[in-house]
């Protein structure tokens, strides 16, 4: 696609500095979001999806910190570093200040829908007043107008008797209703991009369906872009235009949704898809991913997925693949970070397969990292910044 | 009435009710030791406990073996100690000697002497045993009483629960210090004694423990294994004793640790007013009672016991906080 993306993320790195060590929660991800599309960010919990999405709003709290990369939104730099005269990294001059991000980006340009509708609303204020506060803040409306807008929005997201419910408190709403309120909140601020962070995880399946339909409908109506963060491939299939699959802080595959499903390029995506219940498969055919995801504080060397990867070979232990374009579809690149693809030009084919059977199941994160990071080669030649 | 709304445990700070039943001793200990302040708390508690155990054995042994108070105690074998209750004979020893660093002080009485000429350092050291044993004994009374009442109340529910809880709230409604003084004076027939104080303090703590145990029991009661025990015809009493109580223990134990500090505080107040330990027993609160009359002429007499109380309670609080943090994953500092 030729148009400028709404949001461009390049090599974003977010780390948490804890007593136990540095956690590389997001470790160099790049993706774009274009106007009017829904981009999925998929992965198991702990993959860094939420941290990545919060980084976009610079909402990372201590001890976390964005340490590298660039975030550009509508041509403005939300985050960007440059090298200073002494070689140290410093914030670029055109980077928005905290105050600018707060007043110009958060809410009015990029809004968020959080995972837990039960906890996201403040229990001691009425639903309406919370809605109105955010609308007032982000749309420059008067108190009365904001109130009207809030009621309209509540109606829009399918809340019956919005005038009455405006005065009610969150505990008087069901989970699904609260999620509708959060959606109304996001849309009411008229942002260009909404980050939906697992918005349906806490809901039961029927409600989840309703919410997804609602978002789908409203997205088309308002033409808002979405970043849809989820661990559920089913939801992805239903709603997303393009998908980024994350594993341990990295994007391992990036493709339009159909491509991802029908021409999967990364073994992790494969595994995710296999573990997903689908109408075209029986329960017996479900194939959960073996092992657990290692902790981001001590990722395995080489390809981070290799301890769990059915296709892993010796070379995978060594080579840390970047996310490279391996195909193209619908004008978008299909990227994957797996050295089995030719574009990596690695010795994958010659390498000996690793047995990742039952034994690997037991492998603890700590032992998986034996040998440490020092050995890993990065194909992109990137620097470790420790 | 709903005194407390299940938060009665908050008298001294953080609410303990969410503490998880995760209770491996080693794990807990390790977590406590990880935290610097909690570790110091543990050290202080350990030192105070050791001192009181030592002095308790020492004074009892010397009584048993040698009879007269003026006889040898092991403590006296160390040159810095005197006997905590001995008053120097006429012409020997001096009254109201200031601490050693004072111009008129002497090294043989590092903290000076009290108005009767007794070595103040020895008395401060021996005072630990009273505070600590009172703290532990009355907390234990509250703990046991509260556990029983709370368990029965929570387990049976209904009328029993109503009646017991109203009783518990009634006791709670009278400020502890006042209830204990009334109890001590009336029950003792006007001759207050530390024993009455211990029982009195214990009784006033029953409500708090009962409330915590009860809410724990209410959640434990619904668990499968209790249902199973009931179904297989185990007696109520046995269910309560074998299953319900042990499974509700953890939060109460943490609370008990914190409560020891509160107990020492209250007993200090009681003794200060003259309704706790009686002279010549060396007790910090009682020493403050005496030294109050000397606050203008010898300030140090008031300072030392106060500091001793402060440090001891601080130790218990630090340790209790650490224990709570170790057992309660909600907030990690």
């Amino acid at each position, binding site marked *: 696609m030729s148009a400028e993306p709404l949001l461009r993320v390049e090599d974003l790195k977010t780390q948490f500095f804890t007593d136990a060590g540095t956690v590389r929660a997001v470790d160099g991800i790049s993706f774009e979001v274009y106007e009017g599309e829904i981009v999925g960010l998929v992965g198991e919990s702990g993959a860094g999806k939420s941290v990545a999405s919060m980084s976009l709003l610079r909402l990372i709290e201590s001890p976390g910190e964005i340490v590298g990369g660039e975030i550009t939104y509508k041509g403005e730099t939300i985050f960007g570093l440059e090298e200073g005269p002494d070689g140290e990294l410093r914030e670029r001059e055109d980077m928005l200040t905290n105050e600018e991000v707060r007043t110009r980006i958060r809410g009015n340009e990029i809004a968020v829908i959080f995972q837990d509708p039960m906890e996201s609303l403040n229990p001691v204020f009425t639903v309406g007043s919370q809605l109105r506060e955010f609308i007032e803040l982000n749309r420059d409306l008067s108190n009365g107008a904001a109130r009207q807008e809030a009621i309209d929005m509540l109606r829009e997201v399918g809340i019956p008797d919005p005038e009455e419910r405006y005065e009610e408190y969150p505990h008087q709403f069901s989970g699904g209703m609260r999620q509708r309120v959060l959606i109304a909140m996001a849309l009411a601020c008229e942002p260009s991009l909404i980050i939906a962070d697992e918005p349906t995880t806490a809901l039961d399946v029927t409600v989840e369906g309703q919410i997804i339909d609602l978002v789908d409908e409203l997205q088309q109506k308002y033409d808002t872009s979405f970043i849809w963060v989820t661990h559920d491939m089913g939801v992805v299939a239903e709603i997303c235009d393009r998908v980024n699959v994350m594993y341990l802080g990295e994007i391992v595959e990036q493709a339009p949704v159909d491509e991802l499903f029908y021409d999967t390029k990364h073994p992790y995506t494969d595994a995710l898809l296999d573990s997903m219940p689908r109408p075209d498969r029986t329960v017996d055919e479900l194939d959960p991913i073996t092992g657990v995801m290692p902790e981001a504080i001590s990722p395995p060397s080489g390809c981070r997925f290799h301890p769990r990867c059915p296709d892993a070979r010796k070379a995978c232990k060594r080579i840390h693949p970047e996310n490279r374009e391996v195909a193209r579809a619908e004008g978008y690149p299909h990227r994957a970070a797996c050295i089995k693809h030719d574009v990596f030009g690695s010795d994958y084919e010659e390498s000996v397969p690793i047995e990742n059977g039952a034994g690997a199941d037991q492998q603890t994160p700590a032992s998986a990292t034996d040998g440490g990071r020092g050995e890993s080669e990065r194909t992109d030649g990137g620097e470790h910044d420790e | 009435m709903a005194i407390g709304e299940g938060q009665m445990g908050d008298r001294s700070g953080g609410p303990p009710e969410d503490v998880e039943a995760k209770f491996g001793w080693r794990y807990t200990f390790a977590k406590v030791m990880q935290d610097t302040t909690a570790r110091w708390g543990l050290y202080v508690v350990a030192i105070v406990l050791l001192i009181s155990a030592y002095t308790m054995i020492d004074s009892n042994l010397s009584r048993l073996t040698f*009879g007269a*108070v003026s006889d040898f105690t092991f403590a006296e074998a160390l040159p810095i100690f005197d006997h905590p209750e*001995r*008053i120097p004979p*006429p012409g020997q020893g001096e009254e109201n000697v200031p601490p050693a660093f004072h111009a008129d002080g002497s090294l043989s009485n590092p903290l000076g002497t009290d108005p*009767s000429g007794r070595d103040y350092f020895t008395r401060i050291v021996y005072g630990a045993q009273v505070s600590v044993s009172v703290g532990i004994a009355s907390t234990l009374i509250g703990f046991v009483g509260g556990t029983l009442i709370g368990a029965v109340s929570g387990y049976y529910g209904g009328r029993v629960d109503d009646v017991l809880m109203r009783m518990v709230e009634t006791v709670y409604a009278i400020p502890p210090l006042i209830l204990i003084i009334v109890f001590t004076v009336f029950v003792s*027939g006007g*001759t207050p004694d530390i024993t009455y104080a211990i029982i009195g303090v214990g009784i006033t703590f029953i409500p708090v423990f009962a409330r915590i145990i009860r809410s724990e029991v209410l959640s434990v009661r619904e668990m499968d294994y209790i249902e199973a025990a009931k179904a297989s015809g185990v007696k109520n009493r046995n269910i309560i004793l074998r299953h319900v109580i042990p499974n509700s223990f953890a939060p109460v134990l943490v609370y008990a640790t914190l409560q020891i500090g509160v107990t020492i505080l209250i007993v200090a107040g009681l003794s200060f007013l003259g309704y706790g330990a009686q*002279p010549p027993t060396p007790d910090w609160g009682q020493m403050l009672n005496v030294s*109050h009359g000397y606050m203008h002429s010898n300030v140090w007499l008031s300072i030392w016991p106060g500091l001793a109380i402060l440090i001891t309670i601080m130790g218990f609080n630090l340790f209790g906080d650490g224990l709570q943090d170790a057992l309660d994953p909600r907030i990690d500092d």
Partner: protein
Amino acid sequence: MTVYIDGMVRKLPDVSRRYVLATGTAVSATAIAGCIGGNGEDENGEEDIIDPTDYDYDREEPDDEDAARESTMEYTQELERDEDFDPIHSNDAYSAQVYNLVFDGLYEWDAGLDLEPKVAVDMPDVERDGTRYLYEIHEGIEFHNGEELTASDVAHTFMAYQEEDSVNEAQYDMIEDAEAIDDYQVQVDLEHPYGPWELQTMAISIVPESERESEDDREEFNTNPVGSGPFVWSDFEFNEYVTLERNDDYWDDPEPYLQEITFVDNVDEASRVGEIRAGDTDAIADVPNDDWGELEGDDDVRVHISESPSYMHLTFNCRDDAPTGDPDVRRGICHAFSMTDFVESRLGNVAQPLSAPIPPITNDQWGFPLDEWHDEHYPEYDPDQAEELLDGAVDDDWSPTIAAPGDHRGDLAERIVTRLHEIGYEGAQAETLDFGTLLDQTVYNEDPSPDDFQAYLLGWTGGPDPDAYMYNLYHESQVGVNQAHFYEGSDSFHDDIAEARELADQDERYDLYEGVMLEILEELPSLPAYSFHNTMASGEHVRDLHAHPMVQQNPRPVSEYGNVWIDD
């Protein structure tokens, strides 16, 4: 008037403060204090026991009388008043401190406990073998309500104690009749001669008959008294304060400088000392022993002290079933500890040790050879002799209880017990009790067992007449009322006490009391302990303040011997 106070209940008020009295003519004060407590000096040459006469301040006069007449003073009492201000019914020294400024006495005490005429013109004429007293009073004395004080008011006062069933009745029940002869002459008839009459009983505060005619009147009068004294009742809040204003029409000289005086109380001695040190009040009563030096050294504070007729005693349970029924045991206990040492080390600034059952200031009127008695009879610290006396007289597991209030007397009890432990009587114990409980267990105990107590420590405040001590504390009729030693004594012991009470001849009384007191020192039904001084501390700006031996006379803002003002 008549007052007795049970000695020095420090921290909080107790139920029974009492009085009793006497009168006297006598010897001028000599400081006996120093002679009794051994050499009175320690190695450093410092006096262990202070001499109150060292604190007799010279009279002071204001430079600016008008400014002095503007001054107001706050006086902090050491105990709560009972808030009874009718002298007929009032029974506590702290209410008396207030009403003594509102009323004039028929006679009043000087600093040596001699009675001086006040409303009376002179000493009375005695007739009918000491059973009839004739008083002449000053003309032109006016009560605050404007009426004149006449002889019928005086007669009314004398009779009111009996007629109104006053709690003080017992001190006046020898009065047969009192009547006004004319406006300024009163005749009082006694049923029998009464020894203490001239020394102390006739010092009554004169109340106006017209204000106290009905029960309701008297109720009102009790908290809104009308007298003829130098100060007029002004403002009063129960248990909080009493304010008196200067009587600008006072009949006698001198007229007070103070325009206003307010009485408040602070029962906690540390707090009271704090007040005077912090300058929160103008004067406080009762300086604690250990703060004496601190306050004396404070440039902004002046300390005041006077001997007083207070009397602390260690009294034994002398019943046959008690080991302390044996005089050897009593003497053994007395030798086991050193009273002198205790007083020197704990109370040297505010008390003096005793050597006889009367305080030195009472003896000033009588001149008994106290020094001699002390040397000959008073049991000194001698643990060997104590052991010898006790050995065999009591079992090894003898466990006497010594009961005392929780003040300095509790400390003394503790001290005695510690000393008994040292000579092997491990079972001895001190019991410090609330005042009410203590009295219940001792004095009011109808049948005290050896377990209840074998000794107790209490106090008594009398006056210039030995009868106050001998009769109340030693006569058998007072068992269960004022004492509980059950001492039987020699054949004539109780008779002599009773006889001395009803004699008018002071020489005969001297002889009887000498025998009684020597027997007490010999047999030790109780051991005289120490006598407290009356102490006060005032801000340096309070001028011409002088302590008085009778606690109920303090702070004595105006008299022939002082006229207090505040020098700002």
